[in-house]
């Protein structure tokens, strides 16, 4: 995956979580809506954060499939 794609995904998840938190704080959305956004955006944040700072390199390989 390209670095720009990963950065965009990471930014989108951070913005979604921050927006949900902000809108909840000022009372524009109910708690359950903010939680729903967080439940969707948090997994994306975890994976894209890892993909963003992971070490470069590596190629597709075939796992060991038995003798």
């Amino acid at each position: 995956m390209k670095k720009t794609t990963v950065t965009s995904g990471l930014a989108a998840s951070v913005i979604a979580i921050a927006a949900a938190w902000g809108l909840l704080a000022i009372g524009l959305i109910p708690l359950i809506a903010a939680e729903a956004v967080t439940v969707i955006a948090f997994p994306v944040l975890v994976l894209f954060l890892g993909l963003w700072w992971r070490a470069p390199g590596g190629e597709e390989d075939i796992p060991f499939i038995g003798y």
Partner: protein
Amino acid sequence: MIEYLVFAAAFGLLLLGLHRKVIARIQMRPGPPVWQEILHALKFSFKSTWIPKTASSTLYVGVVLVGIGIWSAALFVVLAGESILILFAIYMLHKVVEHGFGLSSGSPYGKFGGVRSVISAASEIPLFVTIAAIYLFTGSLLLRDIVAYQGVHGPLLLIVPPVAIAMYLVILSKMPYGPFSIVESKELVSGYKTEHFGVWRAGISVIDGTKTFVLLYAFVAIFIGAVPFWAALIIMTLILVSLSFVCAVTPMLSPFDSVTIQGLVTGLMLVYVGYLWWVMP
């Protein structure tokens, strides 16, 4: 909200590290430091990452996202005091996630782990009986109602100890290195997790940490009731240490023995709940 998720994942990983430490000490080994699982998660997230050629890319990646998502939702369900039916539905969804992990990579080890995950679905049946018994007493499946009931009548742990033992067994089934941990036993390398490495494995660590926190916190809320948050954390740690003792002194059962024992427990629980239903007004 995200602070709850980060705390739950980190504390859950700390508990899993403590789990390894306690098992090691009982087995006369020094064991890893208690924060080892947190270090593992960070280490994996920094590693080179790709998708194996034999994998179904969408399922391979998607299942990690789904796994983190469902346990994040479970945490909010528990914190909000919502229905334990939702919580246990999520617990069963995790079974689908384990299966997806195993089948997505194309590795026979992962596949066997996924198949064993289906076999070990027997561990979920005591869960249904637990729910039925709780409903007989509290008349509600909302966690906040169950907690309120215990505020008046005392902890369900003392009122229906066999039901608490059944849920304890369910949590034990989910603990690594335990008698029922057939989904990731060593003859399968790491079972369904075998071919998920690097960032994907870091995602699995987040799933495991959050899952451990949610299950133990739910146990405290369902069977002990309303306690201050710091006290809940201490009780969760004590429960985990007791689970570690069980795991340390019990050999891993063969898949069929594991299912047989879980089935027997379910049978006993059914008899117990039937008796409760018969004698209760």
